[in-house]
């Protein structure tokens, strides 16, 4: 691979969802490029869901989990829900044991279950309606954080 070129990971659009399959080594530059590509695609196509397929990754480490969490958070801000697919049980156990986790991103075993998850998720049921539900059930998650009144 020539040094000047950054590998572009292909993004596939399937109906309302985007599918990204990671088959190459992730470096800072590759992750950055991927983030840009995903967010620009979201911007231009209006996708509602994102699936990141990691079945092609041999070694999961904190860098990769952080990168995927990052992508998930950025996508979420643009109204897109992310699911990680292709984690085999062994890797999942390792991640749990090592205390690494995906923030803001759900996990599914296969691509199909990932797509099903997205279909039935709250972005399909209605984001605002879910807030009403959460409020009724007392699980209102609006943080007061640093708000001063």
């Amino acid at each position: 691979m020539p040094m000047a070129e950054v590998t572009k990971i292909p993004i596939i659009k399937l109906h309302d969802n985007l599918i990204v399959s990671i088959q190459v080594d992730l470096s800072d530059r590759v992750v950055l490029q991927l983030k840009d590509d995903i967010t620009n695609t979201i911007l231009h196509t209006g996708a509602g869901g994102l699936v990141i397929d990691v079945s092609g990754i041999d070694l999961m480490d904190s860098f990769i989990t952080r990168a995927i969490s990052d992508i998930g958070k950025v996508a979420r801000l643009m109204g897109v829900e992310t699911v990680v697919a292709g984690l085999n049980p062994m890797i999942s156990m390792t991640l749990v044991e090592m205390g690494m986790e995906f923030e803001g991103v759900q996990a599914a075993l296969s691509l199909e279950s990932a797509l099903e998850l997205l279909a039935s998720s709250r972005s399909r049921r209605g984001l605002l309606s879910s807030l009403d539900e959460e409020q009724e059930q007392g699980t209102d998650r609006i943080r007061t954080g640093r708000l001063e009144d």
Partner: protein
Amino acid sequence: MDKNDRVDGGWLERLAEQLERVCAGEKEVEIKLDTSSPGGRRLEAALAQLVDRYQVNLQDIDGFHESSMELALGLSETFSVLDALRTGDMGIRASAEMLESSNELIAQLAQAVNATTAGMQQRMETILRQQEAIHELSTPVLQLWDDVLALPIVGIVDSTRTADIMDRLLAEIVRSQSKCVILDITGVDVVDTRTADNFIKMVKAAELVGARCVLTGISPGVAQTLVDIGVDLGSVVTLRNLQDGLRECIRYLETRRGGRADHKANGQS
């Protein structure tokens, strides 16, 4: 000296004393020798003339001193006014004393300085008025749909603007009885923790008066910045753009109108 000159002991001393006083700059010294001798009288007259001339010239010098002092004070004041102007005090003016100065140069300078500061003050006031007008224009509250308000926010969102936006937004929500608000921040390029907090405040405020609020128009760059600086928007719903926001609001309103369905039992979209 001829025999007619009477030299009394104090004569020369008195003369010396008076001359000393003249040299020291006293201006009211009269040469008086009290001599009856013609020579003495001629000396007295000559010295008196000399002293008068000297004293008149001293007065000239005093006059120069006074007018150059007046100049110095006037210039001093000018420095002071210009300096105050530089620090932003546009209400500063040259004093009446300066305007009425006996030195014409200073009086003219005072007028020029006052004209300058008054001009700057006027221009400043115009700029402030224009800024306010722009401010008013920059955050309109739009009725986008039945029960849906949209608020496109452009530019910098500081605490003053936030307070102002919230005032107007809440008033409008109550007035129009809207149930949904779309806060569109496509026009906001710079987002930091404070700005993000301000948006959260606006959403919370809208909820308090009974309206659901969504945030739309977060660009890829802004989204990345928010993640980088670790801002947590909690459960604030964020969507790509205004259209997505409107779609979500309409869907929400339909759900509400149709009564609360049991979503748990319904896995289909």
